[in-house]
């Protein structure tokens, strides 16, 4: 026992000396490792560690080793602000990677603006965040829906029903669905916005049948809403009414839904594990070596991977990790060969120009990619947000109406 303790002390001492010996760059991470949101948070954090390891293996940032100061937000909003403050005031971080929900991003965004530290938000979301220090590597609702609605109306028909969660991700997505439907000459025949705790979807399924749509745009968030897809299929509606989504699969819902119910569901996102490219094959090989093959990699994990690499590329380009220089480098039209194709950071909107994939659920709880829309623009964000011309803007834009 004493020997083991001694050995532990030795290794601890060694690791302390080895970390202080070379100069380090600290980056912060706050993700939900426990609680209801850890379905996303654990993978985001894993992706961050993997990206940092690959950057360090390639020589680090400006020759310096990158170390992570990580926090578990426990799926609680108050923890985000608390740890963000700690990271800024105590840890001396050069960049922050954090957040899943839009509420978590909005809670901590002002802290990094105030401290002038580049902050990376890596999740698909409703769109519209605009802030000099904030960089978004997930896809926005308008980015996904613009290609998906086009595809859905062409393949299923013009009568659309919306099933979405009752908070800003759902309602803003609903706005875009209305807008794109109008542009395409289609019609929204009904909509239902649901609380995240609803488990019984019989009323929604009746209303869907009463309005007789060609396609349902379903945006289920969380475990309970995933049950909607199962109940919809069990009612025998899946064969006559198409189902499309911008977030089905983002939390590996295709694993939870039974193959019978999941086969044929269509989702449009910025990443699916079945993307065919060398960069993705390399990424997946590294991931599987580190974390195994138990759960498929979600889009949010790739968004974090991309964020860390974009930051490292910017810091290397700037030759420093000073915030102003790194932000200037990030705004220089940086591109990165990502697992989900080439991504470009838009200088004005701080959002990513990236491929959007439309994929169909197969019979083995996986996805088959059926269409790729290369280099899709974050249209709405580019339109409303130009941080080159207006560097002082700090807003969360929402479409009118």
């Amino acid at each position, binding site marked *: 026992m004493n020997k083991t303790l001694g050995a532990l002390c030795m290794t601890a001492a060694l690791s302390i000396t080895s970390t202080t010996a070379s100069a380090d760059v600290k980056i912060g991470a706050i993700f939900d490792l426990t609680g209801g949101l850890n379905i996303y948070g654990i993978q985001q954090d894993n992706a961050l560690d993997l990206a940092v390891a690959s950057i360090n293996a390639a020589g680090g940032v400006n020759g310096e080793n990158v170390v992570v100061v990580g926090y578990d937000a426990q799926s609680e909003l108050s923890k985000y602000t608390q740890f963000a403050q700690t990271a800024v005031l105590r840890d001396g971080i050069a960049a922050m990677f954090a957040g899943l929900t839009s509420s978590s991003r909005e809670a901590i965004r002002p802290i990094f603006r105030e401290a002038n530290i580049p902050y990376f938000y890596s999740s698909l979301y409703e769109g519209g965040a605009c802030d000099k220090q904030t960089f978004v590597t997930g896809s926005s609702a308008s980015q996904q829906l613009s290609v998906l609605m086009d595809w859905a109306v062409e393949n299923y028909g013009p009568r659309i029903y919306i099933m979405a969660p009752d908070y800003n991700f759902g309602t803003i997505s609903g706005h875009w669905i209305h807008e794109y439907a109008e542009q395409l000459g289609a019609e929204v025949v009904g909509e239902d916005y*649901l609380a995240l705790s*609803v488990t019984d979807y*019989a*009323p929604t399924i*009746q209303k869907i*049948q009463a309005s007789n749509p060609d396609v349902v745009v379903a945006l289920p968030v969380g475990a309970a809403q995933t049950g909607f897809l199962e*109940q919809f299929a069990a009612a025998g509606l899946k064969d006559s009414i198409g189902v499309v989504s911008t977030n089905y699969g983002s*939390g590996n819902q295709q694993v939870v839904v039974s193959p*019978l119910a999941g086969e044929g569901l269509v989702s449009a996102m910025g990443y699916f594990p079945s993307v065919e490219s060398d960069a993705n094959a390399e990424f997946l090989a590294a991931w599987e070596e580190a974390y195994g093959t*138990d759960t498929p990699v979600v889009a949010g994990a790739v968004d974090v991977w991309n964020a860390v690499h974009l930051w490292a590329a910017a810091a290397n380009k700037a030759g420093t990790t000073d915030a102003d220089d790194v932000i200037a480098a990030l705004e220089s039209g940086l591109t990165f060969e990502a697992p989900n194709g080439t991504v470009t950071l838009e200088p004005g909107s701080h959002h990513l120009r990236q491929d959007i994939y439309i994929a169909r659920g197969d019979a083995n709880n996986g996805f088959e990619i059926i269409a790729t829309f290369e280099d899709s623009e974050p249209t709405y964000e580019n339109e409303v947000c130009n941080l080159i011309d207006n560097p002082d803007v700090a807003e969360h834009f929402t479409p009118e109406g």
Partner: protein
Amino acid sequence: MELDFLATVLLSSLSSASILLIATLGLAVVYGLMGVINLAHGEFLMVGAYSALTATQIGLPYPLAIPIAVAMTMLIGAIVELLIIRKLYGRLFDTMLATWGLGMVFNQLAVLIFGTVSPGIGMPQWNFQIGDYSLAVYPIAMIFVAAVMLAFVYFLMTHTVYGMKARASIQEPQMAQAIGIDSSRVNTMTFAIGSGLAGFAGAILLPIIPATPSMGLFFAVKGFLTVVVAGPVALTGSAITALGLGGGASVTASFMTSVIGDVFFFLMTAFLLWLYPLGISAKWRRKL
């Protein structure tokens, strides 16, 4: 309003009420017979769901997985009663706090054991037609399951020796002890049965609500409110409350939106508690 739509709404609202009743009955039994509010009830339901899921994953057919889930949750329930609940008899708020904490522990244990994403077992893809509307068979079958469950608990309480002892212990505790009923053993059994009912609910609802570590939360609030509104007459009170609140919310959701359905649920709860502060069954003469 077409007749077929009306019929579908009625049938599926009855099914919603039944699902609520199935999820709540264990809580109601423990509250009615022990005066303990088990805030880990939702987590027992989750344990039942994962037990059934694991049983099907090792190759057992689903109908056999259900008794395994019941046995598992009854065992855990008995252990929890012996280690925790027993020490806190008569301290309602302390038991609530203790069971709430227990729920958190269960929740996190499930994350550690099963991870955050587990494959669902799927719902039988049977459906039937009423006019222009198609309905899944399985959720409708829950009406029957709820009725059988109620009948079972009623039989257990009225026609078995355990049932008589349990009722004696809650209605006349001192007299029951005086004639030699070991009320603490009866209580262990009652808590185990309540947990077993939760486990049964988790297993039987597994095709409708996939197993996730935090699934208990979905039932915790509405189940708790149903039991509080029902009051001291556990069985009949809960059945009527589940029918009124759950069914009413579902009808409202069908004609308006799901959010208004939830609003109906909570407004009715507030209204009923204002009208009957001790629950709707406080002045009833029947005891079950």
